[in-house]
Protein backbone atom coordinates (compact mmCIF):
# COMPACT_ATOMS: atom_id res chain seq x y z
CA UNK A 1 0.00 0.00 0.00
CA UNK A 2 1.42 3.39 -0.92
CA UNK A 3 1.80 6.10 1.65
CA UNK A 4 -0.78 8.32 -0.02
CA UNK A 5 -3.52 5.70 0.04
CA UNK A 6 -2.66 4.85 3.63
CA UNK A 7 -3.03 8.51 4.61
CA UNK A 8 -6.28 8.72 2.70
CA UNK A 9 -7.60 5.73 4.63
CA UNK A 10 -6.65 7.28 7.96
CA UNK A 11 -8.29 10.53 6.89
CA UNK A 12 -11.48 8.73 6.01
CA UNK A 13 -11.42 6.95 9.36
CA UNK A 14 -10.94 10.18 11.27
CA UNK A 15 -13.70 11.94 9.34
CA UNK A 16 -16.22 9.18 10.01
CA UNK A 17 -15.16 9.08 13.67
CA UNK A 18 -15.64 12.84 13.93
CA UNK A 19 -19.07 12.62 12.33
CA UNK A 20 -20.18 10.24 15.11
CA UNK A 21 -18.31 12.12 17.84
CA UNK A 22 -19.98 15.43 16.92
CA UNK A 23 -23.36 13.96 17.79
CA UNK A 24 -22.26 12.97 21.32
CA UNK A 25 -23.29 15.85 23.56
CA UNK A 26 -21.22 14.83 26.60
CA UNK A 27 -18.19 14.23 24.39
CA UNK A 28 -18.44 17.67 22.82
CA UNK A 29 -18.72 19.37 26.23
CA UNK A 30 -15.57 17.52 27.29
CA UNK A 31 -13.72 18.52 24.14
CA UNK A 32 -14.58 22.20 24.54
CA UNK A 33 -13.45 22.14 28.18
CA UNK A 34 -10.20 20.41 27.25
CA UNK A 35 -9.53 22.96 24.49
CA UNK A 36 -10.07 25.78 26.99
CA UNK A 37 -7.47 24.25 29.32
CA UNK A 38 -5.02 23.70 26.45
CA UNK A 39 -5.46 27.36 25.53
CA UNK A 40 -4.82 28.43 29.14
CA UNK A 41 -1.71 26.23 29.32
CA UNK A 42 -0.37 27.52 26.03
CA UNK A 43 -0.89 31.12 27.09
CA UNK A 44 0.79 30.69 30.49
CA UNK A 45 3.96 32.59 29.53
CA UNK A 46 1.96 35.34 27.85
CA UNK A 47 -0.32 35.77 30.86
CA UNK A 48 2.64 35.93 33.21
CA UNK A 49 4.33 38.50 30.97
CA UNK A 50 1.21 40.63 30.65
CA UNK A 51 0.71 40.69 34.42
CA UNK A 52 4.41 41.27 35.03
CA UNK A 53 5.45 38.12 36.91
CA UNK A 54 8.61 36.07 36.51
CA UNK A 55 8.39 32.35 37.15
CA UNK A 56 10.52 32.48 40.32
CA UNK A 57 8.38 35.32 41.69
CA UNK A 58 5.33 33.14 41.20
CA UNK A 59 7.01 30.30 43.06
CA UNK A 60 7.65 32.63 46.00
CA UNK A 61 4.07 33.91 46.10
CA UNK A 62 2.65 30.37 45.93
CA UNK A 63 4.91 29.11 48.72
CA UNK A 64 4.13 32.07 50.95
CA UNK A 65 0.42 31.76 50.53
CA UNK A 66 -0.37 34.48 53.06
CA UNK A 67 0.70 37.18 50.62
CA UNK A 68 -0.51 35.74 47.30
CA UNK A 69 -2.50 38.11 45.08
CA UNK A 70 -5.31 37.14 42.70
CA UNK A 71 -3.26 38.00 39.61
CA UNK A 72 -0.34 35.86 40.80
CA UNK A 73 -2.80 33.04 41.42
CA UNK A 74 -4.11 33.37 37.87
CA UNK A 75 -0.58 33.02 36.45
CA UNK A 76 0.13 30.06 38.72
CA UNK A 77 -3.11 28.43 37.56
CA UNK A 78 -2.04 28.77 33.92
CA UNK A 79 1.31 27.10 34.66
CA UNK A 80 -0.57 24.44 36.62
CA UNK A 81 -2.72 23.66 33.58
CA UNK A 82 0.48 23.03 31.65
CA UNK A 83 1.84 20.59 34.24
CA UNK A 84 -1.45 18.72 34.58
CA UNK A 85 -1.89 18.36 30.82
CA UNK A 86 1.70 17.24 30.23
CA UNK A 87 1.60 14.72 33.06
CA UNK A 88 -1.91 13.50 32.29
CA UNK A 89 -1.26 12.89 28.61
CA UNK A 90 2.31 11.58 28.82
CA UNK A 91 1.79 9.33 31.83
CA UNK A 92 -1.37 7.87 30.32
CA UNK A 93 0.34 7.30 26.96
CA UNK A 94 3.32 5.61 28.64
CA UNK A 95 1.22 3.34 30.83
CA UNK A 96 -1.09 2.37 27.97
CA UNK A 97 1.88 1.62 25.70
CA UNK A 98 3.41 -0.56 28.41
CA UNK A 99 0.05 -2.23 29.08
CA UNK A 100 -0.54 -2.88 25.37
CA UNK A 101 2.88 -4.49 24.93
CA UNK A 102 2.48 -6.66 28.02
CA UNK A 103 -1.09 -7.60 27.13
CA UNK A 104 -0.12 -8.50 23.55
CA UNK A 105 2.82 -10.64 24.62
CA UNK A 106 0.83 -12.28 27.40
CA UNK A 107 -2.16 -13.11 25.22
CA UNK A 108 -0.21 -14.17 22.15
CA UNK A 109 2.45 -16.34 23.78
CA UNK A 110 0.19 -17.78 26.48
CA UNK A 111 1.31 -20.57 28.80
CA UNK A 112 3.73 -19.84 31.62
CA UNK A 113 4.58 -16.34 30.38
CA UNK A 114 0.89 -15.46 30.38
CA UNK A 115 0.39 -16.95 33.84
CA UNK A 116 3.35 -15.03 35.28
CA UNK A 117 2.46 -11.71 33.67
CA UNK A 118 -1.17 -11.98 34.76
CA UNK A 119 -0.15 -12.66 38.39
CA UNK A 120 1.89 -9.44 38.32
CA UNK A 121 -1.09 -7.65 36.77
CA UNK A 122 -3.39 -8.95 39.51
CA UNK A 123 -0.92 -7.88 42.11
CA UNK A 124 -0.75 -4.31 40.82
CA UNK A 125 -4.51 -4.01 40.29
CA UNK A 126 -5.32 -5.36 43.72
CA UNK A 127 -3.13 -3.15 45.87
CA UNK A 128 -4.16 0.28 47.08
CA UNK A 129 -2.92 2.78 44.50
CA UNK A 130 -2.10 5.85 46.54
CA UNK A 131 0.01 4.23 49.30
CA UNK A 132 2.01 2.47 46.56
CA UNK A 133 2.43 5.75 44.69
CA UNK A 134 3.68 7.39 47.87
CA UNK A 135 6.26 4.68 48.50
CA UNK A 136 7.47 4.61 44.89
CA UNK A 137 7.74 8.38 44.90
CA UNK A 138 9.80 8.15 48.09
CA UNK A 139 12.09 5.58 46.42
CA UNK A 140 12.65 7.80 43.39
CA UNK A 141 13.01 10.97 45.41
CA UNK A 142 16.44 9.90 46.59
CA UNK A 143 18.00 12.18 49.14
CA UNK A 144 14.82 14.11 49.89
CA UNK A 145 14.53 16.51 46.95
CA UNK A 146 11.12 16.54 45.26
CA UNK A 147 10.40 14.73 42.01
CA UNK A 148 10.96 16.08 38.51
CA UNK A 149 8.34 15.83 35.77
CA UNK A 150 9.81 12.70 34.18
CA UNK A 151 10.08 10.84 37.48
CA UNK A 152 6.49 11.54 38.40
CA UNK A 153 5.39 10.32 34.97
CA UNK A 154 7.47 7.18 35.53
CA UNK A 155 5.86 6.50 38.91
CA UNK A 156 2.34 6.88 37.50
CA UNK A 157 3.12 4.77 34.43
CA UNK A 158 4.63 1.92 36.48
CA UNK A 159 1.40 1.56 38.45
CA UNK A 160 -1.03 2.36 35.63
CA UNK A 161 -0.52 -0.27 32.96
CA UNK A 162 -2.32 -3.22 34.54
CA UNK A 163 -5.89 -2.41 33.45
CA UNK A 164 -4.92 -1.95 29.81
CA UNK A 165 -2.84 -5.14 29.85
CA UNK A 166 -5.86 -7.13 31.06
CA UNK A 167 -8.20 -5.84 28.37
CA UNK A 168 -5.64 -6.06 25.54
CA UNK A 169 -4.77 -9.62 26.55
CA UNK A 170 -8.38 -10.77 26.37
CA UNK A 171 -8.76 -9.14 22.93
CA UNK A 172 -5.57 -10.78 21.67
CA UNK A 173 -6.73 -14.15 22.99
CA UNK A 174 -9.80 -14.00 20.74
CA UNK A 175 -8.03 -12.33 17.78
CA UNK A 176 -5.28 -14.91 17.54
CA UNK A 177 -7.82 -17.65 16.85
CA UNK A 178 -9.28 -15.80 13.86
CA UNK A 179 -8.76 -17.11 10.31
CA UNK A 180 -6.69 -14.13 9.14
CA UNK A 181 -4.01 -14.91 11.70
CA UNK A 182 -3.99 -18.52 10.61
CA UNK A 183 -3.71 -17.39 7.00
CA UNK A 184 -0.78 -15.13 7.84
CA UNK A 185 0.93 -18.00 9.64
CA UNK A 186 0.32 -20.31 6.68
CA UNK A 187 2.17 -18.01 4.30
CA UNK A 188 5.08 -17.88 6.77
CA UNK A 189 4.64 -14.58 8.62
CA UNK A 190 6.76 -14.24 11.76
CA UNK A 191 5.16 -13.80 15.17
CA UNK A 192 6.38 -10.22 15.35
CA UNK A 193 4.88 -9.45 11.96
CA UNK A 194 1.54 -10.95 12.95
CA UNK A 195 1.49 -9.09 16.28
CA UNK A 196 2.29 -5.67 14.84
CA UNK A 197 0.68 -5.83 11.40
CA UNK A 198 -2.40 -7.94 12.03
CA UNK A 199 -3.29 -7.88 15.71
CA UNK A 200 -2.20 -4.38 16.73
CA UNK A 201 -4.33 -2.56 14.09
CA UNK A 202 -7.36 -4.47 15.38
CA UNK A 203 -6.87 -3.38 18.97
CA UNK A 204 -5.91 0.19 18.08
CA UNK A 205 -9.40 1.68 18.75
CA UNK A 206 -9.36 0.07 22.17
CA UNK A 207 -5.86 1.35 22.88
CA UNK A 208 -6.82 4.89 21.87
CA UNK A 209 -9.85 4.81 24.16
CA UNK A 210 -7.75 3.60 27.06
CA UNK A 211 -5.24 6.36 26.41
CA UNK A 212 -7.97 8.96 26.90
CA UNK A 213 -9.56 7.10 29.82
CA UNK A 214 -6.15 6.91 31.54
CA UNK A 215 -5.64 10.68 31.57
CA UNK A 216 -7.99 11.52 34.48
CA UNK A 217 -6.37 8.93 36.73
CA UNK A 218 -2.92 10.29 35.96
CA UNK A 219 -3.97 13.89 36.61
CA UNK A 220 -5.58 12.96 39.93
CA UNK A 221 -2.58 10.84 40.97
CA UNK A 222 -0.14 13.69 40.38
CA UNK A 223 -2.36 16.17 42.19
CA UNK A 224 -2.80 13.84 45.19
CA UNK A 225 0.91 13.13 45.48
CA UNK A 226 1.83 16.78 45.19
CA UNK A 227 -0.88 17.73 47.65
CA UNK A 228 0.66 15.37 50.20
CA UNK A 229 4.00 17.12 49.62
CA UNK A 230 5.56 14.07 47.97
CA UNK A 231 5.09 15.04 44.35
CA UNK A 232 6.48 17.55 41.95
CA UNK A 233 9.29 20.00 42.70
CA UNK A 234 7.74 23.46 42.94
CA UNK A 235 10.90 25.36 42.07
CA UNK A 236 10.81 23.77 38.62
CA UNK A 237 7.09 23.49 37.89
CA UNK A 238 4.03 24.89 39.62
CA UNK A 239 1.16 22.43 39.64
CA UNK A 240 -2.41 22.79 40.91
CA UNK A 241 -1.56 20.22 43.54
CA UNK A 242 1.28 22.38 44.84
CA UNK A 243 -0.95 25.45 45.15
CA UNK A 244 -3.31 23.34 47.27
CA UNK A 245 -0.39 21.91 49.25
CA UNK A 246 0.94 25.33 50.18
CA UNK A 247 -2.53 26.66 51.00
CA UNK A 248 -3.85 23.65 52.90
CA UNK A 249 -0.63 22.06 54.06
CA UNK A 250 -1.50 19.01 56.15
CA UNK A 251 1.63 19.64 58.22
CA UNK A 252 0.12 22.82 59.63
CA UNK A 253 -2.17 20.60 61.67
CA UNK A 254 -5.67 21.40 62.82
CA UNK A 255 -4.67 24.63 64.56
CA UNK A 256 -3.44 26.65 61.60
CA UNK A 257 -5.65 26.06 58.60
CA UNK A 258 -4.71 29.04 56.51
CA UNK A 259 -7.22 28.23 53.78
CA UNK A 260 -10.22 28.76 56.04
CA UNK A 261 -9.59 32.49 55.87
CA UNK A 262 -8.53 32.50 52.21
CA UNK A 263 -10.99 30.29 50.35
CA UNK A 264 -10.37 32.06 47.06
CA UNK A 265 -6.87 30.55 46.91
CA UNK A 266 -8.02 26.93 47.22
CA UNK A 267 -11.21 27.06 45.13
CA UNK A 268 -9.65 27.59 41.66
CA UNK A 269 -7.03 24.80 41.73
CA UNK A 270 -9.45 22.16 43.01
CA UNK A 271 -12.16 23.23 40.60
CA UNK A 272 -9.71 23.12 37.68
CA UNK A 273 -8.53 19.62 38.62
CA UNK A 274 -12.17 18.53 38.76
CA UNK A 275 -13.10 20.13 35.44
CA UNK A 276 -10.05 18.88 33.54
CA UNK A 277 -10.59 15.36 34.89
CA UNK A 278 -14.28 15.58 34.01
CA UNK A 279 -13.45 16.78 30.48
CA UNK A 280 -11.20 13.80 29.79
CA UNK A 281 -13.64 11.33 31.35
CA UNK A 282 -16.45 12.67 29.14
CA UNK A 283 -14.25 12.41 26.06
CA UNK A 284 -13.16 8.90 26.98
CA UNK A 285 -16.74 7.69 27.44
CA UNK A 286 -17.77 9.28 24.16
CA UNK A 287 -14.89 7.53 22.35
CA UNK A 288 -15.72 4.28 24.08
CA UNK A 289 -19.31 4.52 22.89
CA UNK A 290 -18.20 5.05 19.30
CA UNK A 291 -15.26 2.66 19.09
CA UNK A 292 -16.46 -0.14 21.35
CA UNK A 293 -18.85 -2.27 19.28
CA UNK A 294 -20.56 -3.66 22.39
CA UNK A 295 -21.74 -0.22 23.50
CA UNK A 296 -22.64 1.20 20.11
CA UNK A 297 -26.35 1.92 19.86
CA UNK A 298 -27.89 0.36 16.81
Amino acid at each position, binding site marked *: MSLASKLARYKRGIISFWRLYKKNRFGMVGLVMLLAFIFLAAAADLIAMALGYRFDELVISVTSVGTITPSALLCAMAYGARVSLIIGITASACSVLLGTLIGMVSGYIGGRVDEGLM*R*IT*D*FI*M*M*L*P*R*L*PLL*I*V*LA*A*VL*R*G*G*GAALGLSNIILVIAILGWAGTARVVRSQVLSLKERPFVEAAKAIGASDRYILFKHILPNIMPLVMTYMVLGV*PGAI*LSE*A*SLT*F*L*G*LGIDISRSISWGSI*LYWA*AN*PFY*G*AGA*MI*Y*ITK*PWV*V*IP*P*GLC*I*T*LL*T*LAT*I*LMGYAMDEILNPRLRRR
Partner: protein
Amino acid sequence: MALRDYVARRLVTAFVTFLLVVIANFFIFKMMPGDPMLWYMQAIRQQHQQMPPEELEKLKAQIAELFGFNRPLHEQFFIYLTSLFTFDFKISITMELGKPVIDIIAERLPLTILLLTPAYAIAIWVGMRLGAEAAWRRGKKFDVAAVAISLFFYSMPIYWLGVMLQIIVAPTGWPIAGTLDWSYWQGLGATSGEKTFLQQFVDILAYDPLGAIVDLISHILLPVITLVVYMYGGYFLVMRNTMLDILTQDYVTTARAIGHDDGTVLHHHAKRNAMLPMITIIVLAFAGIFSGAVLTETIFSWQGMGRLIFDAINARDYPVIEACFFIMALLVVVANLIADIVYGFLDPRIRY
Protein backbone atom coordinates in the same frame (compact mmCIF):
# COMPACT_ATOMS: atom_id res chain seq x y z
CA MET B 1 -14.74 -27.99 36.74
CA ALA B 2 -16.16 -28.76 40.14
CA LEU B 3 -16.71 -26.07 42.72
CA ARG B 4 -13.98 -27.59 44.90
CA ASP B 5 -11.38 -27.27 42.15
CA TYR B 6 -12.47 -23.71 41.52
CA VAL B 7 -12.03 -22.80 45.18
CA ALA B 8 -8.65 -24.57 45.31
CA ARG B 9 -7.47 -22.69 42.25
CA ARG B 10 -8.56 -19.38 43.76
CA LEU B 11 -6.75 -20.21 46.99
CA VAL B 12 -3.51 -20.87 45.14
CA THR B 13 -3.82 -17.65 43.14
CA ALA B 14 -4.49 -15.62 46.26
CA PHE B 15 -1.50 -17.17 48.00
CA VAL B 16 0.82 -16.42 45.07
CA THR B 17 -0.38 -12.81 44.95
CA PHE B 18 0.13 -12.50 48.65
CA LEU B 19 3.68 -13.88 48.43
CA LEU B 20 4.43 -11.37 45.67
CA VAL B 21 3.26 -8.59 47.99
CA VAL B 22 5.41 -9.83 50.84
CA ILE B 23 8.53 -10.09 48.66
CA ALA B 24 7.95 -6.71 47.00
CA ASN B 25 7.38 -5.18 50.43
CA PHE B 26 10.83 -6.27 51.56
CA PHE B 27 12.76 -5.12 48.50
CA ILE B 28 10.95 -1.81 47.97
CA PHE B 29 11.90 -0.71 51.45
CA LYS B 30 15.46 -1.90 50.94
CA MET B 31 15.54 0.37 47.88
CA MET B 32 14.30 3.40 49.75
CA PRO B 33 16.97 6.03 50.18
CA GLY B 34 18.76 6.39 53.47
CA ASP B 35 19.92 3.81 55.96
CA PRO B 36 17.15 3.02 58.50
CA MET B 37 19.88 2.77 61.15
CA LEU B 38 20.85 6.41 60.53
CA TRP B 39 17.25 7.56 60.92
CA TYR B 40 16.99 5.59 64.09
CA MET B 41 20.16 7.06 65.60
CA GLN B 42 18.95 10.53 64.69
CA ALA B 43 15.66 9.90 66.47
CA ILE B 44 17.47 8.61 69.56
CA ARG B 45 19.76 11.61 69.67
CA GLN B 46 16.78 13.93 69.51
CA GLN B 47 14.85 12.22 72.24
CA HIS B 48 17.61 11.21 74.67
CA GLN B 49 20.19 13.95 74.46
CA GLN B 50 22.05 13.04 77.64
CA MET B 51 22.59 9.38 76.81
CA PRO B 52 26.24 8.33 77.33
CA PRO B 53 28.02 7.08 74.19
CA GLU B 54 28.59 3.51 75.43
CA GLU B 55 24.88 3.04 76.12
CA LEU B 56 24.10 4.47 72.70
CA GLU B 57 26.40 1.86 71.15
CA LYS B 58 24.69 -0.87 73.13
CA LEU B 59 21.24 0.26 71.94
CA LYS B 60 22.50 0.42 68.38
CA ALA B 61 23.76 -3.16 68.59
CA GLN B 62 20.43 -4.30 70.04
CA ILE B 63 18.49 -2.71 67.21
CA ALA B 64 20.83 -4.14 64.58
CA GLU B 65 20.37 -7.57 66.17
CA LEU B 66 16.57 -7.19 66.33
CA PHE B 67 16.17 -6.34 62.65
CA GLY B 68 19.21 -8.28 61.48
CA PHE B 69 20.79 -5.21 59.86
CA ASN B 70 24.27 -6.64 60.43
CA ARG B 71 23.52 -9.91 58.63
CA PRO B 72 23.53 -10.87 54.95
CA LEU B 73 20.47 -10.04 52.87
CA HIS B 74 18.98 -13.54 52.74
CA GLU B 75 19.07 -13.83 56.54
CA GLN B 76 17.45 -10.40 56.83
CA PHE B 77 14.75 -11.61 54.48
CA PHE B 78 14.21 -14.69 56.64
CA ILE B 79 13.94 -12.58 59.80
CA TYR B 80 11.47 -10.35 57.97
CA LEU B 81 9.34 -13.32 56.89
CA THR B 82 9.16 -14.87 60.35
CA SER B 83 8.29 -11.53 61.91
CA LEU B 84 5.44 -10.98 59.42
CA PHE B 85 3.86 -14.38 59.75
CA THR B 86 4.00 -14.27 63.53
CA PHE B 87 2.52 -10.74 63.48
CA ASP B 88 5.55 -9.53 65.41
CA PHE B 89 6.36 -6.30 63.61
CA LYS B 90 9.22 -5.29 65.93
CA ILE B 91 9.36 -1.71 67.16
CA SER B 92 8.85 1.74 65.76
CA ILE B 93 12.18 3.42 65.08
CA THR B 94 11.37 7.08 64.60
CA MET B 95 7.77 8.04 65.35
CA GLU B 96 7.25 6.60 68.81
CA LEU B 97 10.69 5.32 69.64
CA GLY B 98 10.77 1.75 70.90
CA LYS B 99 6.99 1.28 70.96
CA PRO B 100 5.91 -2.06 69.44
CA VAL B 101 4.47 -1.52 65.96
CA ILE B 102 1.63 -3.93 66.68
CA ASP B 103 0.49 -1.65 69.54
CA ILE B 104 0.50 1.40 67.30
CA ILE B 105 -1.57 -0.41 64.70
CA ALA B 106 -3.95 -1.81 67.29
CA GLU B 107 -4.64 1.79 68.28
CA ARG B 108 -5.09 3.11 64.75
CA LEU B 109 -6.92 0.31 62.94
CA PRO B 110 -10.20 0.56 64.94
CA LEU B 111 -10.41 4.27 64.08
CA THR B 112 -10.06 3.56 60.37
CA ILE B 113 -12.68 0.82 60.57
CA LEU B 114 -14.95 3.20 62.48
CA LEU B 115 -14.61 5.78 59.70
CA LEU B 116 -14.66 3.52 56.66
CA THR B 117 -17.52 1.15 57.56
CA PRO B 118 -20.34 3.73 57.54
CA ALA B 119 -18.82 5.59 54.58
CA TYR B 120 -18.46 2.40 52.54
CA ALA B 121 -21.96 1.16 53.39
CA ILE B 122 -23.69 4.46 52.63
CA ALA B 123 -21.76 4.94 49.38
CA ILE B 124 -22.69 1.48 48.13
CA TRP B 125 -26.33 1.91 49.10
CA VAL B 126 -26.66 5.36 47.51
CA GLY B 127 -24.73 4.35 44.39
CA MET B 128 -26.79 1.24 43.75
CA ARG B 129 -30.09 2.89 44.50
CA LEU B 130 -29.44 5.84 42.19
CA GLY B 131 -27.85 3.62 39.54
CA ALA B 132 -30.88 1.35 39.30
CA GLU B 133 -33.22 4.32 39.21
CA ALA B 134 -31.21 6.11 36.50
CA ALA B 135 -31.05 3.00 34.31
CA TRP B 136 -34.80 2.55 34.68
CA ARG B 137 -35.32 6.10 33.38
CA ARG B 138 -32.63 5.99 30.72
CA GLY B 139 -32.35 9.20 28.72
CA LYS B 140 -34.87 11.07 30.90
CA LYS B 141 -34.01 14.21 32.85
CA PHE B 142 -33.35 12.28 36.06
CA ASP B 143 -30.86 9.99 34.32
CA VAL B 144 -28.94 12.79 32.60
CA ALA B 145 -28.79 14.86 35.80
CA ALA B 146 -27.70 11.89 37.93
CA VAL B 147 -24.97 10.92 35.45
CA ALA B 148 -23.69 14.49 35.14
CA ILE B 149 -23.60 15.07 38.91
CA SER B 150 -22.02 11.69 39.61
CA LEU B 151 -19.32 12.22 37.00
CA PHE B 152 -18.59 15.65 38.48
CA PHE B 153 -18.08 14.23 41.98
CA TYR B 154 -16.23 11.25 40.55
CA SER B 155 -13.72 13.68 38.99
CA MET B 156 -13.26 15.68 42.15
CA PRO B 157 -10.09 15.27 44.21
CA ILE B 158 -11.26 13.94 47.57
CA TYR B 159 -8.99 16.16 49.67
CA TRP B 160 -10.29 19.26 47.93
CA LEU B 161 -13.83 18.18 48.71
CA GLY B 162 -12.78 17.84 52.35
CA VAL B 163 -11.16 21.28 52.34
CA MET B 164 -14.30 22.82 50.79
CA LEU B 165 -16.52 21.22 53.44
CA GLN B 166 -14.21 22.58 56.14
CA ILE B 167 -14.37 26.07 54.66
CA ILE B 168 -18.16 25.97 54.50
CA VAL B 169 -18.60 24.57 57.99
CA ALA B 170 -15.83 26.44 59.83
CA PRO B 171 -17.77 29.69 60.55
CA THR B 172 -20.49 27.72 62.38
CA GLY B 173 -18.02 26.40 64.95
CA TRP B 174 -18.65 22.78 63.99
CA PRO B 175 -15.50 20.68 64.62
CA ILE B 176 -13.57 20.42 61.35
CA ALA B 177 -10.76 18.08 62.37
CA GLY B 178 -9.75 15.49 64.93
CA THR B 179 -11.45 12.49 66.48
CA LEU B 180 -12.88 13.74 69.77
CA ASP B 181 -12.70 16.96 71.74
CA TRP B 182 -9.90 15.62 73.98
CA SER B 183 -9.08 18.82 75.83
CA TYR B 184 -12.72 19.25 76.81
CA TRP B 185 -12.97 15.73 78.24
CA GLN B 186 -9.58 15.87 79.93
CA GLY B 187 -10.57 19.22 81.43
CA LEU B 188 -13.59 17.54 82.96
CA GLY B 189 -11.29 14.89 84.41
CA ALA B 190 -13.02 12.14 82.47
CA THR B 191 -9.79 10.69 81.17
CA SER B 192 -6.09 11.42 80.87
CA GLY B 193 -3.72 11.92 77.98
CA GLU B 194 -1.41 9.02 78.87
CA LYS B 195 -3.87 6.34 77.83
CA THR B 196 -4.39 5.02 74.33
CA PHE B 197 -7.25 6.22 72.19
CA LEU B 198 -9.46 3.23 72.88
CA GLN B 199 -8.92 3.39 76.66
CA GLN B 200 -9.68 7.11 76.65
CA PHE B 201 -12.78 6.55 74.57
CA VAL B 202 -14.01 3.86 76.96
CA ASP B 203 -13.38 6.24 79.89
CA ILE B 204 -15.36 9.01 78.23
CA LEU B 205 -18.14 6.63 77.28
CA ALA B 206 -18.44 5.57 80.91
CA TYR B 207 -18.37 9.18 82.11
CA ASP B 208 -21.05 10.54 79.78
CA PRO B 209 -22.34 8.05 77.16
CA LEU B 210 -24.64 10.43 75.31
CA GLY B 211 -22.13 13.27 75.21
CA ALA B 212 -19.37 10.97 73.98
CA ILE B 213 -21.43 9.64 71.10
CA VAL B 214 -22.62 13.12 70.10
CA ASP B 215 -19.01 14.32 70.18
CA LEU B 216 -17.83 11.39 68.05
CA ILE B 217 -20.63 11.83 65.50
CA SER B 218 -19.99 15.54 65.19
CA HIS B 219 -16.35 14.78 64.36
CA ILE B 220 -16.96 11.81 62.08
CA LEU B 221 -19.70 13.43 60.00
CA LEU B 222 -17.53 15.54 57.68
CA PRO B 223 -15.00 12.82 56.81
CA VAL B 224 -17.81 10.33 56.22
CA ILE B 225 -19.64 12.75 53.90
CA THR B 226 -16.39 13.38 52.05
CA LEU B 227 -15.74 9.67 51.56
CA VAL B 228 -19.32 8.93 50.51
CA VAL B 229 -19.39 11.68 47.89
CA TYR B 230 -16.01 10.49 46.60
CA MET B 231 -16.94 6.81 46.44
CA TYR B 232 -20.58 6.63 45.40
CA GLY B 233 -19.96 7.77 41.80
CA GLY B 234 -18.08 4.60 40.91
CA TYR B 235 -20.84 2.32 42.24
CA PHE B 236 -23.47 4.45 40.56
CA LEU B 237 -21.88 4.19 37.12
CA VAL B 238 -21.30 0.44 37.32
CA MET B 239 -24.79 -0.25 38.67
CA ARG B 240 -26.33 1.87 35.94
CA ASN B 241 -24.40 0.04 33.21
CA THR B 242 -25.25 -3.38 34.62
CA MET B 243 -28.93 -2.48 34.91
CA LEU B 244 -29.01 -1.14 31.34
CA ASP B 245 -27.70 -4.52 30.22
CA ILE B 246 -30.17 -6.47 32.31
CA LEU B 247 -33.22 -4.43 31.35
CA THR B 248 -32.80 -5.60 27.73
CA GLN B 249 -32.81 -9.29 28.76
CA ASP B 250 -35.64 -11.56 27.76
CA TYR B 251 -36.70 -12.43 31.30
CA VAL B 252 -37.42 -8.77 32.03
CA THR B 253 -39.64 -8.59 28.96
CA THR B 254 -41.32 -11.80 30.09
CA ALA B 255 -41.91 -10.41 33.56
CA ARG B 256 -43.55 -7.37 32.01
CA ALA B 257 -45.62 -9.51 29.66
CA ILE B 258 -46.92 -11.50 32.62
CA GLY B 259 -48.24 -8.21 33.91
CA HIS B 260 -46.00 -7.43 36.88
CA ASP B 261 -45.94 -3.75 37.75
CA ASP B 262 -42.81 -1.63 37.33
CA GLY B 263 -41.79 -1.88 40.98
CA THR B 264 -41.85 -5.67 40.99
CA VAL B 265 -39.92 -5.90 37.73
CA LEU B 266 -37.28 -3.43 38.93
CA HIS B 267 -36.81 -4.71 42.47
CA HIS B 268 -37.47 -8.41 42.14
CA HIS B 269 -36.35 -9.29 38.63
CA ALA B 270 -33.79 -6.77 37.44
CA LYS B 271 -32.07 -5.54 40.60
CA ARG B 272 -31.41 -8.99 42.01
CA ASN B 273 -29.55 -10.05 38.92
CA ALA B 274 -27.60 -6.82 38.89
CA MET B 275 -26.29 -7.61 42.37
CA LEU B 276 -24.03 -10.34 41.04
CA PRO B 277 -21.51 -8.18 39.14
CA MET B 278 -21.76 -5.60 41.92
CA ILE B 279 -20.19 -8.02 44.41
CA THR B 280 -16.95 -8.02 42.42
CA ILE B 281 -16.95 -4.26 42.05
CA ILE B 282 -17.61 -3.72 45.74
CA VAL B 283 -14.72 -5.95 46.76
CA LEU B 284 -12.34 -4.65 44.12
CA ALA B 285 -13.07 -1.14 45.35
CA PHE B 286 -12.01 -2.28 48.80
CA ALA B 287 -8.38 -1.50 47.91
CA GLY B 288 -9.41 1.89 46.59
CA ILE B 289 -10.87 3.01 49.90
CA PHE B 290 -7.43 2.86 51.50
CA SER B 291 -6.29 5.54 49.06
CA GLY B 292 -9.31 7.60 50.05
CA ALA B 293 -8.55 6.95 53.70
CA VAL B 294 -4.98 8.28 53.41
CA LEU B 295 -6.18 11.59 51.97
CA THR B 296 -9.32 12.00 54.08
CA GLU B 297 -7.61 11.13 57.35
CA THR B 298 -4.76 13.50 56.54
CA ILE B 299 -7.10 16.40 55.85
CA PHE B 300 -9.31 15.80 58.88
CA SER B 301 -6.47 14.82 61.25
CA TRP B 302 -8.27 11.55 61.87
CA GLN B 303 -5.72 9.38 63.64
CA GLY B 304 -6.30 6.16 61.69
CA MET B 305 -4.20 3.90 59.47
CA GLY B 306 -4.24 6.30 56.51
CA ARG B 307 -2.77 9.12 58.54
CA LEU B 308 -0.33 6.63 60.08
CA ILE B 309 0.99 5.60 56.63
CA PHE B 310 1.43 9.23 55.66
CA ASP B 311 3.21 10.13 58.90
CA ALA B 312 5.36 6.98 58.88
CA ILE B 313 6.59 7.61 55.35
CA ASN B 314 7.48 11.18 56.21
CA ALA B 315 9.27 10.02 59.36
CA ARG B 316 10.92 7.09 57.52
CA ASP B 317 9.61 4.66 60.09
CA TYR B 318 10.23 1.53 58.01
CA PRO B 319 8.88 -1.09 60.45
CA VAL B 320 5.59 0.83 60.69
CA ILE B 321 5.25 1.26 56.91
CA GLU B 322 6.04 -2.40 56.28
CA ALA B 323 3.46 -3.50 58.83
CA CYS B 324 0.80 -1.18 57.36
CA PHE B 325 1.41 -2.52 53.88
CA PHE B 326 1.36 -6.07 55.11
CA ILE B 327 -1.99 -5.61 56.85
CA MET B 328 -3.52 -3.74 53.92
CA ALA B 329 -2.37 -6.42 51.49
CA LEU B 330 -3.66 -9.18 53.74
CA LEU B 331 -7.08 -7.52 53.99
CA VAL B 332 -7.30 -6.92 50.26
CA VAL B 333 -6.18 -10.40 49.27
CA VAL B 334 -8.56 -12.06 51.73
CA ALA B 335 -11.45 -9.86 50.57
CA ASN B 336 -10.77 -10.77 46.95
CA LEU B 337 -10.61 -14.43 47.80
CA ILE B 338 -13.93 -14.28 49.64
CA ALA B 339 -15.54 -12.44 46.74
CA ASP B 340 -14.30 -15.03 44.25
CA ILE B 341 -15.57 -17.90 46.34
CA VAL B 342 -18.94 -16.28 47.05
CA TYR B 343 -19.26 -15.56 43.36
CA GLY B 344 -18.54 -19.18 42.57
CA PHE B 345 -21.32 -20.28 44.90
CA LEU B 346 -23.83 -17.74 43.64
CA ASP B 347 -23.25 -18.09 39.94
CA PRO B 348 -23.09 -21.68 38.67
CA ARG B 349 -21.89 -20.41 35.29
CA ILE B 350 -18.53 -19.38 36.78
CA ARG B 351 -16.37 -22.47 36.65
CA TYR B 352 -13.09 -22.14 34.86
